[in-house]
């Protein structure tokens, strides 16, 4: 399958200077555990956190440059680790047990390139058994009657397992603004249900980390970061020659501005579990506690697994599979109809050419003309024999309705050589001409070697003239019907206005520069502000459907019935960068409530 990722151009979240700070290589950890970084081949310890003496009772010098196996006080544990860890494989489910200097630790192993990272946390002898908790979580999520009940059961169950004061289910929109859609909490701490949080609350790097590492755990925000000592200089920091990548490590230290942020709002422990759908961060289970709070590794695994069961159950209950099948069936019907119609048209045209004009056959001639007319009615829209004869508009019925349904669009238009047919409540022909005139300039090239499909939910940010038609076409998806002529299918989606109450002014940047680095925003007062200028976002499934239909139509329309290769793109001067307007509305509500709301999910 061709890579169509470049075709999807929904308006991105606002960018910030701190988005790509190397937070995964801080060169320090949180103090609730000890980190060992070992060579995967030799097991030799290359880095150790500087709290080893306090937690393990061993000097750094007694650990560095020696095998981590020598730390085990038990022959059985040492043998187990030796037999089940190879350079390229870790054969046991985490955690392993390691007894060091008479104390028991949960040892969590994972591979990071040619290194193994080992996170040691004191074992909690009172922790409930994983098996019991896991069974309860599975039972709870196995068969909820509705999606709302699924959401509520999930937050209740995670709160029960972790004991946190508040657990929220937080869902992202296409620009990574988030909304709390379910919540379980202590009765006396207020509610955040329904509130929106701006995308600036979680930077791009942090969002990516959530795709790789499903848990972020901060048991005590006041814990001072612990640096690393190593056999290499630089302490494993990002700017050293041997940085330690902690993307998959729960112990990774917390960026100072986030600590300040949590201090500002009174949260002393925080934990979140990512919900990833189709390689995208769909949402988070976000947990807050107003005192430091320790949660055992096994309980965190139960919550991580609950998040995965939640994703599956959500997908099956919201019928994403049924929706996929319905659209594929529509696409199949539409392409069959057009393919058969094109074949019939060729046959009838041949018959018509061969017609002898015998007056005795007037009836047959009339029947042939009617047949041609009927076939033309079915096929001419997508495969016009003569573009100048295309109707100016077409009702949303038959093939036209299928055309809308497969892309879940509100209206559509077909353009062939400057002639436009509008389907349903599409913008005016003039507006469509204006949009199409941008193809190849402000809009990515639909010809050449591009993906031949382009989709955005914020057309007016790219084509200023589209601001006037957003009630019909805030979002557009275009597919090229020819690789060397201006012929397109355009699908439109109307503006979808979301009335949002935000946790603070979303237009204000979350961070500002201060004497000691970045300072988090200090105001979290409720702020009413609509989300405007955008349609429902397009997704990869939309793009794939558009690509498949356009590929079939190009094949039918080509002289030999085969898909023609794309011509190499013509060199042209660089297009000017279009002004991108913010997708957020202008004026705030004059008075928000004084309810304080808090940021969740920061790493």
């Amino acid at each position, binding site marked *: 399958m061709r890579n169509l990722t470049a075709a999807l151009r929904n308006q991105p979240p606002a960018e910030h200077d701190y988005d790509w700070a190397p937070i995964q290589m801080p060169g320090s950890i949180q103090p609730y555990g000890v980190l060992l970084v070992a060579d995967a081949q030799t097991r030799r310890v290359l880095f150790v956190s500087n709290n080893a003496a306090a937690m393990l009772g061993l000097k750094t010098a007694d650990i560095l440059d020696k095998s981590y196996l020598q730390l085990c006080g038990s022959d059985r544990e040492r043998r187990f680790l030796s037999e089940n860890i190879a350079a390229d494989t870790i054969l046991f489910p985490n955690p392993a047990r390691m007894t060091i200097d008479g104390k028991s630790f949960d040892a969590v192993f994972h591979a990071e390139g040619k290194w193994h990272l080992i996170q040691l946390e004191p074992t909690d002898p009172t922790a409930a058994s994983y098996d019991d908790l896991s069974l309860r979580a599975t039972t709870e999520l*196995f068969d909820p009657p509705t999606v709302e009940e699924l959401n509520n059961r999930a937050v209740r169950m995670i709160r029960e397992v972790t004991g946190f004061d508040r657990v929220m289910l937080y869902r992202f929109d296409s620009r990574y603004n988030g909304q709390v859609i379910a919540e379980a909490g202590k009765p006396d701490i207020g509610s955040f249900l329904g509130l929106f949080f701006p995308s600036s609350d979680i930077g791009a790097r942090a969002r990516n980390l959530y795709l790789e590492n499903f848990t972020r755990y901060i048991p005590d925000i006041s814990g001072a970061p612990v640096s690393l000592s190593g056999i290499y200089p630089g302490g494993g920091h990002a700017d050293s020659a041997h940085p330690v990548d902690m993307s998959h490590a729960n112990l990774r230290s917390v960026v100072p501005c986030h600590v300040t942020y949590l201090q500002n709002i009174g949260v002393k422990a925080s934990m979140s579990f990512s919900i990833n759908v189709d390689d995208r961060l769909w949402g988070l289970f976000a947990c807050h506690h107003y005192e430091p709070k320790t949660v055992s590794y096994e309980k965190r695994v139960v919550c991580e697994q609950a998040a995965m069961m*939640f994703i599956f159950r959500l997908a099956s209950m919201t019928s994403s599979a049924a929706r996929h099948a319905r659209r594929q069936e529509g696409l199949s019907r539409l392409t069959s109809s057009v393919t058969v119609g094109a074949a019939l048209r060729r046959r009838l045209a041949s018959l018509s050419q061969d017609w002898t004009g015998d007056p005795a056959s007037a009836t047959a001639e009339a029947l042939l003309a009617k047949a041609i007319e009927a076939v033309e009615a079915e096929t001419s829209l997508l495969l016009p024999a003569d573009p100048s004869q295309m109707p100016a508009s077409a009702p949303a019925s038959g093939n036209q309705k299928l055309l809308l349904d497969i892309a879940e669009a509100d209206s559509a238009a077909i353009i062939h050589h400057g002639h436009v047919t509008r389907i349903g409540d599409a913008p005016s022909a003039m507006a469509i001409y204006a949009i199409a005139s941008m193809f190849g300039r402000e809009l990515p090239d639909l010809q050449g070697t591009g993906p031949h499909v382009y989709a955005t939910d914020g057309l007016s940010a790219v084509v200023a003239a589209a601001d006037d038609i957003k009630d019909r076409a805030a979002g557009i998806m275009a597919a090229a019907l020819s690789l060397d002529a201006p012929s397109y299918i355009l699908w439109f989606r109307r503006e979808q206005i979301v009335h949002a109450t935000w946790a603070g002014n979303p237009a204000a940047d979350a961070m500002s520069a201060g004497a000691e680095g970045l300072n988090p925003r200090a105001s979290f007062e409720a702020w009413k502000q609509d989300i405007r200028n955008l349609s429902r976002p397009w997704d990869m499934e939309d793009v794939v459907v558009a690509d498949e239909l356009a590929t079939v139509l190009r094949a039918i329309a080509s002289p030999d019935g085969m898909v023609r290769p794309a011509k190499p793109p013509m060199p042209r001067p660089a297009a000017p960068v279009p002004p991108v307007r913010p997708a957020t509305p202008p004026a705030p509500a004059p008075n928000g409530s004084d309810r304080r709301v808090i940021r969740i999910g920061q790493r």
Partner: protein
Amino acid sequence: MSDFEITLTATDLASILATKGTLDSKVSQVFKTKSDKALEMEPKNINVDFKNLAVLDSSAAGMLMFFNYAAKTKGKLISITNASPAVQQVLNRANLGKLLTIR
């Protein structure tokens, strides 16, 4: 278009679900139809063979957790075999080895 395929065969010792392609939420019904049949078959052991499975996503890991739960309620044991390194990585991150046997 989905590229997922699944076949169910049985020996005296185990039912075998052999998978191919991409296992994600979009094909969950296809997986469920076959896995439900495996749960009704005689052998106590069900082997999910990932030899030709290229991709497994988080939702599919969740589906396997539910499948394992359903199997336990029927007294069956699930094992996963032949996972590629990429699929094995997802299984490890999901800590599925705590619930069922991965060989």
